[in-house]
């Protein structure tokens, strides 16, 4: 191969390499900048974390004062905003009454869906059905089926529950 052709081939290889690099960068940039992709990911994250927090907020081990305290701290960790403030305000009274009652509840989210998600403001609306296994200190254990609507807010520490409402208990009320 003559040096001229060799040089040309060399440049061609470099050009192709540069093009490939550019193509890779472009593809990556597209993925990074894809709004619906980040939106879909935010949706799945909010749903997963919302489910987890809802289960926590429906669970409490009332065995003794320490466990109740741990449970209440977990509630605070799962909440933010108005719900967090409210739980903090009533924490002492809650601890006393829950320790006195001594019931243990274990919540499990059986089904959940987001009904709204605003990525810009970092808020989401979640609906969920929760089965709560309640074991009273004395008496028979039972399962309560509850349904909730929750407002989630994005915090520095992930999505948390800002407001929680039980939706229509029905059953003759």
């Amino acid at each position, binding site marked *: 191969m003559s040096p001229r052709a060799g040089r040309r081939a*060399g440049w061609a290889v470099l050009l192709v*390499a540069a093009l490939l690099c550019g193509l890779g960068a472009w593809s990556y940039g597209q993925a990074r900048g894809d709004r619906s992709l980040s939106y879909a990911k935010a949706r799945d994250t909010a749903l997963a974390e919302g489910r987890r927090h809802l289960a926590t907020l429906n669970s409490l081990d009332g065995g003794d004062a320490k466990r109740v305290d741990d449970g209440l701290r977990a509630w605070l960790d799962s909440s933010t905003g108005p719900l967090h403030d409210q739980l903090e305000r009533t924490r002492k009274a809650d601890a006393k009454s829950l320790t006195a009652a001594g019931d243990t509840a274990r919540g499990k989210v059986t089904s959940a869906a987001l009904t709204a998600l605003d990525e810009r403001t970092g808020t989401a609306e979640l609906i969920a059905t929760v089965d709560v296994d309640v074991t009273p200190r004395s008496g028979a254990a039972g399962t309560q089926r509850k349904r909730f609507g929750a407002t989630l807010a994005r915090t520095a520490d992930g999505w948390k529950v800002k407001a929680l409402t039980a*939706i229509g208990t029905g059953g003759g009320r």
Partner: protein
Amino acid sequence: MNSTGTDTTDTTDAEDVAAPTDTPTDTTAVTAATDGTGQADNAGTAGTADGTGRTGTVDAADAVDASRRRWPRVLGALLAVALIAAGGALYAEGRQLRDTPATANLALTDAEATARVTGDVSSALGKIFSYGPGSTAATRAAAKEVLAGKALQQYAALFGQVERQSADQKLTLTTEVVRAGVTRLTGRGAHLLVFLDQVYERRGRAPTTASAQLTVTAELRDGRWWIVEIGTT
């Protein structure tokens, strides 16, 4: 390959001496340069292989040239490899960002389709779970318009009993969807979680309200969402 420039200067110098009045044309310069490399290449191989022709001094000079010539090639090759590797890495990273089950689910990301399936399924559930003593036939007909597959079979099995009950007890049921959320949505199918409030009215008694939660599977057929499966949560 770039350091042929050195050769060019050398040979051009020689030519300048040979023909000092004329600036060499491009062609001659290039030919000279080519010749120069040709010689150098020959020298390189000759030096090791048979040692015919060139003197030692020329060999030494050409060896320096050859090593100078190698550097840009190595650099170029390294650069090319680095570029390709970087491009590949970025592409793989981008793929990884995209390669998530999140993108396959259009719930909420496709706002219009989400609103449509929620609306279709909600109104369908309201229709098929609402009836009065005299209107069970209308409800049954409405069910055929919105239910398909397994859901239609389930419903048919259940509804015979409902019809009798409604007639016997003068029972009226009104169902209203209070909340509905799409858990999964694709171009053809959807899964929803629906909260219902149902009001039972028996003649001569106070109405009672019950809440129900259903998971619904729907399919898009002929531009319309059909409920194909109804389950409890």
